[in-house]
């Protein structure tokens, strides 16, 4: 089992969500984060212009069986990309085990 964590643009979230549902990945968590990176956003406040690289992003965390790994990564890469600096990152890690709390199943039965 693998965990795929993706930091994406907030404006791309709906597209990514749709793309994941399209490949039958229906369970994940997400939360808003502030990210620091290469993209800069221009702001103005009471006469002071400033550029910030602290930008609102969305983090998605998905745990899937191994055979879903490539489709998931490809969907996110497709849906979340705009071609501009600041599109985000995807991280893949190994998951030791997963449980479904309601039924107490574990292993791949616990996530699909």
């Amino acid at each position: 089992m693998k965990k795929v964590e993706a930091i994406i643009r907030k404006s791309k979230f709906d597209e990514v969500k749709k793309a994941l549902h399209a490949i039958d990945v229906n369970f994940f968590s997400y939360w808003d984060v502030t990210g620091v990176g290469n993209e800069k956003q221009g702001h103005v406040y009471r006469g002071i212009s400033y550029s910030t690289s602290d930008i609102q992003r969305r983090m998605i965390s998905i745990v899937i069986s191994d055979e879903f790994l490539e489709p998931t990564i490809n969907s996110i890469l497709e849906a979340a990309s705009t071609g501009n600096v600041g599109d985000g990152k995807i991280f893949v890690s190994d998951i030791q085990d997963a449980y479904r709390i309601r039924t107490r199943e574990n292993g791949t039965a616990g996530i699909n």
Partner: protein
Amino acid sequence: METALFTANNVWMMVCTALVFFMHLGFSFLEIGLTRQKNTINILFKNVFIICTGLLLYYLGGFNLMYPGDFNGYLGFSGFGIQLPENGLTPDYASGGYTYWTDFLFQGMFAATAATIVSGAVAERIKLGGFMIFTIIYVGLVYPIVGSWQWGGGFLSTLGGENAGFHDFAGSTLVHSVGGWAALIAIYLLGPRIGKFSETGKAQAIPGHNIPLAAAGVLILWLGWFGFNGGSVLSADPAGTSLVLVTTSLAAAAGGIGAFVLSAIFYKNYDLTMFLNGILGGLVGITAGADLMSPNESVIIGLLAGALIVLAVAFVDKIKLDDPVGAVAVHLICGIFGTLAVGIFGAKAGIDQFLFQLAGAGATAVFCSVTAFSILYIIKKTFGIRVSKEEELEGLDLHEHGMDAYADFRLNQH
């Protein structure tokens, strides 16, 4: 008339002026509360712009366009700027009700409210520049011209001869429908927000980000209506003002209950935002005839207006128009209802009056739709009236203003 009475009248009118001004705060809160946090600065900017420009335009020429003195009944203008007439500070000016300055300011506060109605309907997707141009033309010209037809002594006020004609006590048609028609045309030309309708055309919910603020806004608006209707008596006459305050508040209360009950029956839940919209519907509904209705009739009008709100909101969704704050339902639908109610209930009820009301509502409908459509269509075809998809998704605050309404405090978005 003795000075004390003149002073008392004028003081009441000035207090009402301040209360109507205060309604802008109510509109701002309501609009912010029912839209998403990423557009909050933009909404406030539009509202503050309307307050400032509206008053300045009224001072530059709106007042004299609305009250041109002797004119042909359709279009007249008595000059730019405001000049104190000879009797402007005496009881001679307005039957001792108020001075010229009070007259200007009280009416000036009404002018901007017509544009505010539009700002709620077009929220979250209109281009700021286009909106500002539209506001200047609509508040500067269209609102005063329609007002002149009735309050300025124009053709609507004498439809049935010297003393009989259209009756619109505080502006169900002249203020609320004027704004309402523009709102309807605007949302038609603008299109719905991204995500408001699914691919199959089903309406989706886009919940507002601050319901407490929306509730505060409606209660502030109710308070402001004490001045909006109370001041339309145009003096501090105890009989007139005290009755009007009663009819106004009863209609507001009944409007809320009407909307709450009907929406609970239809949707099987207790929706605060419907309750709040219902209060406003009742207020708009009584505004045309607050001086003519008995308390019982006010309650009936309120209940009907509240019920209409629920139906109207669903109808607007059904015809695939996106109205984030229910402006069309509250101001247009209930504005027309309140106008027609003057011919059905109250001291002037009767077929003749009903026809006058229909005429007034109709003339306003045609003039406002045509002008609003022309202005917005031209803006749409030249500068464009809608922000780009990316700007809309990331928020107008970031793209039109480069600012954050809640820089230090994040609310999670859906």
